[in-house]
């Protein structure tokens, strides 16, 4: 008899029998799936943000101005002067001969400079914004006829709008994932409450406070949600690394080879966001279970 109590379970563990009421299978599995989705959505937010930023910088406006017969009457100089005097223009630079050669090499092969073609001069222009493209083109045309202004930022701007929309969708997806996680914990907690109704009433009758009962549920829900989210985040890691490898060339880098290179190439927000998933799920589990149980307990006197 003396050693019997020692064989019994330790104090304060599963008074309410929640180990069976809140199953350690379904809820973690569902939360794990949610965490996996959240990781993908997070990757979407980060990637879209990176692309948007990249394109934005590109679209921060380079124009190209072609000036045919540049040497005649100092046409090129006049165009340059005019461009530099215009307030929207940050920088205007005529491409040098070697730059022209580099530009044309894919079409004309090496030594294109020696080919006697009437080549226009090409001026690369960085502008503050591209709102007044048409006005600038008209002024150039009237001052130096034949000048051609090419604004190749328009599609970039569209891409950047697209990237922003993708980013918003990904953020929305994350919000929905959190919402579904809350709903799942709520449903699981309600099911646990109704399957443990007798035990709760007995413990309530013995003088358990709402805080005690809600705390038991919340602790269980928190553990289940955290373990599920941990599994989901771990499973999402290889997928994110794979996506990082695929996306790297588009961001202007080279495809990283090797696990370390991949890991380093993965954006910092992802490295911060992924480990935050289990604590976030734990918080959702705890808060939702507390709220659900406390509301349910109001029906008892």
């Amino acid at each position, binding site marked *: 008899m003396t050693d019997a*109590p020692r064989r019994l379970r330790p104090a304060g563990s599963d008074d309410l029998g929640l180990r069976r009421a809140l199953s350690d299978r379904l809820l973690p599995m569902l939360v794990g799936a949610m965490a996996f989705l959240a990781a993908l959505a997070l990757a979407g937010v980060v990637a879209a943000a990176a692309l948007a930023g990249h394109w934005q910088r590109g679209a921060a406006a380079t124009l190209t101005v072609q000036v045919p017969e540049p040497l005649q009457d100092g046409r090129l100089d006049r165009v340059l002067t005019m461009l530099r005097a215009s307030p929207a223009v940050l920088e205007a630079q005529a491409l040098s001969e070697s730059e022209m050669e580099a530009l044309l090499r894919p079409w004309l092969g090496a030594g294109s400079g020696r080919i006697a073609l009437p080549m226009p001069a090409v001026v690369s222009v960085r502008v503050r914004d591209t709102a007044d493209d048409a006005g600038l083109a008209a002024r150039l045309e009237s001052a130096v006829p034949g000048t051609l202004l090419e604004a190749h930022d328009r599609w970039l701007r569209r891409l950047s709008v697209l990237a922003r929309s993708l980013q918003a969708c990904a953020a929305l997806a994350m919000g929905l994932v959190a919402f579904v996680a809350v709903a799942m914990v709520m449903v699981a907690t309600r099911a646990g409450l109704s399957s443990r109704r007798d035990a709760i009433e007995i*413990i*309530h*009758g*013995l*003088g358990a406070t709402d805080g005690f009962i809600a705390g038991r549920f919340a602790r269980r829900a928190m553990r289940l949600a955290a373990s599920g989210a941990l599994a989901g985040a771990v499973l999402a890691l290889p997928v994110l690394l794979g996506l990082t490898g695929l996306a790297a060339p588009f961001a202007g880098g080279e495809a990283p080879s090797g696990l370390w290179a991949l890991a380093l190439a993965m954006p910092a927000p992802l490295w911060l966001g992924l480990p935050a998933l289990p604590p976030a799920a734990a918080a959702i589990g705890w808060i939702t279970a507390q709220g659900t149980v406390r509301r349910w307990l109001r029906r008892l006197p």
Partner: protein
Amino acid sequence: MLHDLTFAVPEGGFRWLLGASGAGKTSLLRLLQLAVRPTQGELVLLGESIGPALRRRLPLLRRRIGTVFQDFRLLPHLSAYDNVALPLRLAGRPEGQIRVDVSELLNWVGLSRKLAARPAELSGGEQQRVAIARAVVGRPALLLADEPTGNLDEVQAERLMQLFHEMNRLGATVIVATHNDTLVARHPAHTLLLQDGQLVRDD
């Protein structure tokens, strides 16, 4: 269900609660153990007026009330030991003291070999004794019992009455609802008699 019911039990008093089935004994006990609040009238329990009392005050009051339920109301997933230890754990007593008190009490009711047994593994009488141990382990100021001898033989019932008298002597107010006329005859005491939800005798 209950109506026109006025009575007072002094601190440290003993009452038999008698009446036919359906007379309202269990309803009255539910009021006294704070399982329901009165819809009308006034109920003062252990010095606290229950009607206007804040809901969060009630758990502390409940911890001072021990109840032996007719249907035992043990937690099926907990051992006999843990069932009896529950009120002490809810009150936040240290585990060392809990071990001493619970072991002693289960020893006293003759269940020292069944500490680890779940309620389903116990006979009706054994379950009733666990329920009794759980009701008294916290040394309640108010002890309520609903047919506490229903599953006990005469010797055990007599021992239980000794326990109730001992608790009573130590200052607890004891109210026992029963149909066991022999027991009442053997231990004459102040009686509350209910009939159709009304108090018809209080002496």
